[in-house]
């Protein structure tokens, strides 16, 4: 009897030990981000305690990601899902979530981070009208390009990670502090680098640099798309060329998935430079982290604006 009790106690102790320690040590938290920029932030906060996957590839158009079955499996096994929360993924995330049958990442669950929560969204439409193009009901969803918005997003990520994985809460908070300290220093650098170009006029392909322009007081005078999500037409491009000539706009910002040839055609006629800028970390070499990415964007922009001054 005594032996049996001792055995049971020993087994219980062993079970409780394995229960408390082994999962923590053996398993990283499965964090899934819809886009690589959110994934980079999650990695910065989660460190070694998390395994981060991005559904969208850095080089592809994040509005049009295929709802591939492999994404269903990824989401099914996720402990945490970070999405933009501003309908950037509305064309592909809902059917994936429906198939993934994972309560842990349902809206409102601790494992679900809606990044845009608390962010002051720009271009929130006052009425819904698709004659204005593919306007997102919750506002322009490309908000991570403003470092001040990133402050809010990383704080939210840290909070959710700590809730889902309390054992590593201290690590997440430490990483958050370190990230914010670097962000403060970097923000000053970026501010200084772009300060000389306050009010500079730029043209973009899509309305995807609005938050950057707002933060650093740049002036996006035109987009090559006549309206969001509408392919550039010759008539519209002619108008853009006229505007660029009249206002002496010398740079056109293009992301890797956008039609560079269209931008080159416009640039040739306006003596402007086409700038290859990517908003997703990893799309260009040496841009794996958010800081590297922003360094690259700011440097590319500042150099071109200086050359074209």
């Amino acid at each position, binding site marked *: 009897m005594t032996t049996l009790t001792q055995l049971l106690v020993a087994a219980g102790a062993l079970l409780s030990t394995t229960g408390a320690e082994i999962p923590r040590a053996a398993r990283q938290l499965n964090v899934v981000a819809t886009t690589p920029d959110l994934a980079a932030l999650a990695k910065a906060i989660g460190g070694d305690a998390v395994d981060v996957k991005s559904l969208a*590839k850095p*080089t*592809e*158009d994040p*509005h*049009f990601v*295929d*709802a*591939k*079955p*492999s994404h*269903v*499996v990824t989401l*099914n096994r996720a402990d945490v899902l970070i999405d933009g929360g501003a*309908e950037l993924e*509305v*064309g*592909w*995330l*809902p*059917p994936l979530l*429906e*198939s*993934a*049958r994972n*309560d842990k990442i*349902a809206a409102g669950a601790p494992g679900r981070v809606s990044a845009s929560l608390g962010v*002051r969204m720009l271009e*929130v*439409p*006052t009425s*819904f009208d*698709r004659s204005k*193009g*593919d306007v997102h*009901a*919750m506002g322009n969803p490309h908000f991570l390009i403003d470092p*001040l918005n990133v*402050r809010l997003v990383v704080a939210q990520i840290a909070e959710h990670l700590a809730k889902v994985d309390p054992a590593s809460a201290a690590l997440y908070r430490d990483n958050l502090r370190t990230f914010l*300290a670097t962000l*403060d*220093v970097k*923000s*000053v650098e970026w*501010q*200084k680098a772009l*300060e000389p170009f306050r009010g500079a006029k730029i043209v973009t392909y899509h309305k995807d640099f609005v938050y950057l322009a707002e933060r650093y007081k740049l002036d996006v005078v035109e987009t090559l798309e006549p309206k969001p*999500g*509408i*392919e550039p037409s010759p008539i519209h491009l002619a108008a853009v060329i006229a505007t660029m000539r009249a206002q002496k706009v010398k740079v056109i910002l293009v992301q*890797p*998935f*956008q*039609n560079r040839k269209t931008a080159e055609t416009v640039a040739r006629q306006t003596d402007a430079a086409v700038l290859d800028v990517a908003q997703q970390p990893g799309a260009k070499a040496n841009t794996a982290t958010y800081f590297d990415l922003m360094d690259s964007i700011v440097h590319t922009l500042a150099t071109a604006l200086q050359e074209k001054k």
Partner: protein
Amino acid sequence: MRNAVLVGVLLCVSHTAGAQQVPDSTARRQQRTLDSLATALAATQARLDSVIAAPPPAAPARASGSYMNVSFVGLTDFGWSTAKDLGALQVGDHEPHARGFAIPNAELALDGTVDPYLKAFANIVYKLNAKGETGVELEEMYFLTTSLPGNLQVKGGQFFAEFGRQNAQHPHAWAFADQPLALNRMFGPEGLRSQGLRISWLLPTSFYTEATLAVMNSAGTTTYSFRSDESSAIHAGAPADRAVGSAADLLYVPRIATSVDLTDTQTLLMGVSGAFGPNNSGPGAQTQIYGADVYWKWKSPTAHMGFPFVSFQSEGLVRRYGAATRVAFDTNRVLPGETLRDNGAYAQLQWGIKPMLIAGLRADYARGDGMAVPVYATVERANRTRYSTNMTWFPTEYSKFRLQYNYDHRAGIGNDHTVLMQFEFLLGAHAAHKF
């Protein structure tokens, strides 16, 4: 306030420039403190700005915040063919059945979350027949569980059977203006759908594998190869009045599908399906349908709006229709019990050339074997081959134009050339499609 901060930041900026010339560690330290203070101030300012400048909470009506998504898809077709009776050629329910214009499909789709455990979806279809009369049908209406344990999911209501790839898709997701011949032959003009329950299990494999089993009613025009009033088209006998005696008289549709990402840009999805149930050629008669499907897609790593891409899709189906001893529908002649065998397949290639422009190519066939009394062989089971090509242009995600040409060969009838034009628009909730 904002100006004060900016002046502060600018002061810091100019001060830094000066400090760099003096290698004084105290000055540097002070500078760093100043920098971080300036940033903190800027952040505080930004937050204040957002509080002050944020629109009042009630201002924008948020579509995404509503309890139900509503959308409406309108499809207008134009069809012309060397065959006078276009309806005999284009047998699908969402295709033009007479030369000229047609509105074969206007879908009102409703979907939303019922409660923490269920989602629900309804699809109500309006269509005009060749006389301009409106028909309404409850095409689909089902609930879907969201939080069952063990990776299980249950669907219940009226729904398209998940057999193969295209059967469960709605017309606006099709790559061609018409249904493949093989699906017409096995599932009739409206596809295989019925009332029932479907259980699905996402297997714990490292790659996607999903097994589903649907148990459905086996009666009605949408269960064409089973207890359908139109079964004469298959077995040439008068349909028997056959009630449900046991669970064996229901329709069972199992399926297993699996998918792998071949490379970063290529995905392969394959599946095998079956449909087993009673038919009403006579008592005890059973039908078995087997199918295999494959879908492959390549999408550019720098895809813009999802283009360019190339996709290949193919399905093959085989039917064993156990026809009972029956009386021919037009005479009193007794037709012997026999197994009627049909098969069909299609293969289609889509090339998304550049944003919003897709070219398509499809080859298609369906065959049926002879009957014990050959004179009763139905036109619906005759051999047929078809080649189609089309071009689809999407002005935006919410509308599309399609021009399609079909070259048809029907055994015993001859060759026909058909042109189909389609225009489609979408109102309401954003279209989101499964892979």
